[in-house]
């Protein structure tokens, strides 16, 4: 049942992404100033927003972990942060490509939006080493949850500070200050947002399903071998789902 739901979600995501790409290139008009280059906007900005929301979601799941002491919430938080980190790498690379095309530089250090996003990424880049540094799984999960909550609070604060910054170099989206999108562009932008959010959810479920299957296999191997003892824990940054109960 789990797999069937994932298949449906994956198909919906693939269709949504295909539709978005078609609309980006064949329906949305070119920007007056940036021309065709502005098409990068439809992948870069939704990726950035979904990444930041993913980090916040990881923090919320970490709160649940500390509140309930249920290790499955730690796994969920880990997977959310893991996928957001991958998306974040995409944001940095697509942003650099856009900056090179639009401004002639791969990176602009006095642009608050870019630098603040890099700061968030550098902060989260320490999440995996932090986990790996702690051998005891329970302590590791607690420390990782505290980190995910603290960093998760930093994300919206950081975002708000950037919005308040006076620089208008970086195009603003979803605001009336500048760069307000005309009709068709807005439709495609929101569709791109939905598609990339769906992609994040699909990958999250995909990884959770894989972790769940691995845990079930481990339990099955133990039962077949007639070994009732818990297996020795290998040092790892990735938490494992304990027990056969749903890792959903």
């Amino acid at each position, binding site marked *: 049942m789990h797999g069937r739901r994932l298949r449906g979600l994956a198909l919906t995501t693939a269709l949504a992404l295909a539709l978005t*790409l078609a609309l980006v290139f064949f329906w949305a008009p*070119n*920007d*007056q*100033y*940036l*021309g*065709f*280059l502005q*098409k*990068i906007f439809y*992948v*870069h900005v939704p*990726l950035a927003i979904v990444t930041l929301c993913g980090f916040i979601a990881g923090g919320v799941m970490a709160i649940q972990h500390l509140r309930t002491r249920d290790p499955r919430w730690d796994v969920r938080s880990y997977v959310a942060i893991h996928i957001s980190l*991958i*998306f974040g*790498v*995409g944001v940095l*690379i*697509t942003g650099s*490509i*856009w900056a*090179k*095309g*639009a401004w002639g530089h791969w990176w602009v250090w006095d642009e608050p939006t870019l630098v603040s996003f890099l700061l968030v990424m550098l902060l989260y880049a320490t999440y995996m080493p932090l986990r790996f540094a702690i051998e005891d799984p329970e302590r590791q999960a607690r420390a990782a949850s505290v980190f995910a909550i603290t960093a998760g609070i930093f994300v919206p604060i950081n975002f708000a500070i950037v919005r308040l910054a006076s620089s208008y170099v970086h195009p603003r989206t979803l605001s009336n200050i500048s760069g307000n999108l005309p009709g068709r562009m807005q439709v495609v932008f929101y569709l791109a947002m939905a598609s990339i959010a769906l*992609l994040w959810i699909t*990958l999250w479920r*995909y*990884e959770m399903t*894989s972790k769940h*299957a*691995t845990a079930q*296999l481990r339990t*099955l*191997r133990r039962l*077949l*071998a007639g070994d009732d003892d818990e297996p020795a824990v290998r040092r790892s940054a990735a938490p494992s789902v304990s027990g056969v109960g749903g890792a959903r």
Partner: protein
Amino acid sequence: MPALPLHTAGPYVAAAYIVFVALILLYVAIMAGRLSRIERELGELTELAARGEREEQDDR
């Protein structure tokens, strides 16, 4: 600022979308590797269970 002509902007746009697709494909490929490991382990366990059942029948 005049809009960049298509032949100048095209490679940048293509590069950005290729990076996006490549990242997703890389992730899916890594996950597919894990899935094939799970499949292999499942095969081993099925073999183990079948062997156990055969031994039980022989004992009887």
